[in-house]
């Protein structure tokens, strides 16, 4: 099975050529510690193509202005570009309206917004919120906070030793007290692609709403919120080749209408008097203050860029990298892959016998290879596997099998040094 096969067809405008694509990313062409950079930390953040970098630079060079209420030329131009990014985001997720596209700082803010604005309003004492064992801290802590505040209970879907979510156990957790299910679409630490369509259908049967943490899914696969029928989905621009500090929260319009604003301030109001304030309409209700204008515009350009490559091409290439990487890494004596789910995105977490991930990370860096080590903000998941952390190589569509070969060589060298 190809991980991340697109649910929705995406027009492919040109054949996939990894070497040509690499030319779009200036950062990849440098030496680190005397070695050509191998960047395998894409699950932490992705690199940016020239188009995205230029979009930020052009905004500040040519039309930096505050948006929405300015009458002058540059303000109109900035507003137009920013709102065009919202339309691109809508199409990207196949939302039914731009009213369902809220711009945020990133996935973390998106989840906090829903926990705060939906959770606080609708959770009653005794209600239950379900998350899974493989959640990032950002999809654990906001729910713990709101559950504590509202007297609700947090329940956890267990996983098996390969990192598959246990759907039967999930079914047992669902009941008429379940109000919210919030799960990760693709695990950042294991690469597991969760069966979110089934999770959503089952949750809806008991009347719960479902939030998806889409941070690690959107770099790899087309996400169609209508086909999934998820109620909320959060993602981060910087994981999809856009700038940091920007993200999207998708929410069904019907639900967003019922929720209270997350923050108060400019932009989110219609009228303000000292006696009473009326709130602005969607999506501005949730967008207090001057937003990251260049970030929004550049995220729109990142979406254009992804579309120009096509998710089918991305999924195919990354699948090849995952299969190749799994095969060659598995051949290293003493190397154990953590997370061998049936369906995976291009993430390989591993441990090598007798070598602490910290030592591995430092010594690979000295060879120009960037991976991530540690608990990956998933401490409960590490506890589940009874490990302190892992080494994680995460691939993007601009990575190559030749780079994976360098990783293998690098690991062998570290083994020799520490042996």
């Amino acid at each position, binding site marked *: 099975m190809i991980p991340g096969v697109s649910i929705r067809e995406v027009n492919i405008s040109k054949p996939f050529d990894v070497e040509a694509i690499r030319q779009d990313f200036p950062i990849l062409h440098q030496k680190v510690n*005397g070695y050509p950079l191998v960047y395998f930390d894409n699950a932490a953040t992705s690199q940016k193509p020239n188009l995205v970098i230029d979009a930020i630079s052009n905004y500040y060079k040519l039309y930096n202005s505050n948006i929405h209420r300015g009458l002058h030329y540059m303000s109109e131009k900035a507003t137009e570009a920013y709102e065009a990014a919202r339309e691109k985001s809508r199409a990207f997720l196949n939302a039914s309206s731009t009213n369902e596209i809220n711009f945020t700082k990133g996935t973390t803010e998106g989840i906090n917004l829903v926990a705060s604005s939906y959770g606080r309003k609708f959770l009653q004492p005794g209600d239950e919120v379900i998350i899974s064992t493989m959640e990032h801290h950002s999809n654990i802590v906001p729910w713990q906070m709101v559950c504590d505040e509202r007297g609700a209970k947090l329940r956890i879907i267990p996983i098996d030793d390969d990192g598959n979510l246990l759907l039967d156990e999930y079914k047992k957790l669902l009941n008429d007290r379940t109000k919210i299910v919030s799960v990760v679409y693709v695990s950042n630490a294991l690469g597991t692609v969760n069966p979110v369509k089934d999770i959503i259908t089952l949750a809806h049967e008991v009347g719960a709403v479902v939030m998806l943490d889409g941070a690690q899914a959107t770099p790899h696969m087309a996400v169609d919120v209508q086909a999934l029928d998820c109620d909320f989905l959060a993602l981060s621009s910087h994981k999809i080749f856009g700038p940091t500090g920007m993200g999207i929260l998708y929410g069904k319009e019907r639900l967003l209408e019922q929720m209270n604003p997350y923050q108060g301030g400019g932009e989110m109001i219609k009228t303000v008097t000292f006696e009473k304030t009326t709130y602005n309409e969607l999506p501005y209700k949730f967008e207090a203050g001057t937003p990251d204008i260049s970030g929004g515009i550049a995220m729109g350009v990142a979406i254009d860029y992804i579309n120009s490559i096509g998710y089918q091409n991305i999924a195919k290439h990354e699948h090849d990298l995952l299969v190749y990487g799994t095969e060659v890494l598995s051949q290293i004596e003493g190397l154990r892959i953590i997370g061998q789910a049936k369906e995976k995105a291009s993430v390989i977490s591993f441990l090598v016998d007798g070598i*602490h991930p*910290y030592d591995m990370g*430092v010594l690979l860096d*000295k060879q120009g290879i960037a991976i991530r080590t*540690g608990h990956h903000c998933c401490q409960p998941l590490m506890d589940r596997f009874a490990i302190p952390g892992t080494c994680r190589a995460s691939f993007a569509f601009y990575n190559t099998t030749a780079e994976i070969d360098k990783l293998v060589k690098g690991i062998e060298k570290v083994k020799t*040094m*520490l042996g």
Partner: protein
Amino acid sequence: MTINEIQEEIIEEFALFEEPMDRYDYLIDIGKKLPELEERFKIEENVVKGCQSTVWLHSFEKDGNVYFEADSNTVITKGIVGLLVRVLSGHTPQQILDTDLYFIDKIELRSHLSSQRSNGLSAMMKQIKIYALGFSQQAKQA
């Protein structure tokens, strides 16, 4: 040897290696040769915790000098811990407090000491100074 003489000695040793990887090889060697800290000292009070690696730091005073013994669960951290112990152990509290650890920059290991969260080394440095300060206060009171 004074603290600075030991620092100079370490700088000379590391200058023999041009390649960064060779410096790390040497550092790993130092880590491996560091005597294991006795289990009875690997207790919660002696833990200097980083996000990814843990350092145990035990100190004691003898004849007016402060001695350090330390360990870590990662080899590279252990190597740096070994260097710090070599430089700072066996000197008076005041000498330790007055030390400028310039050798770290010279042998290009600063990144390991400045990272805020990952390896516990910056916390260890702070702890060493706290111990030294504590012993110097004790000495003054006595």
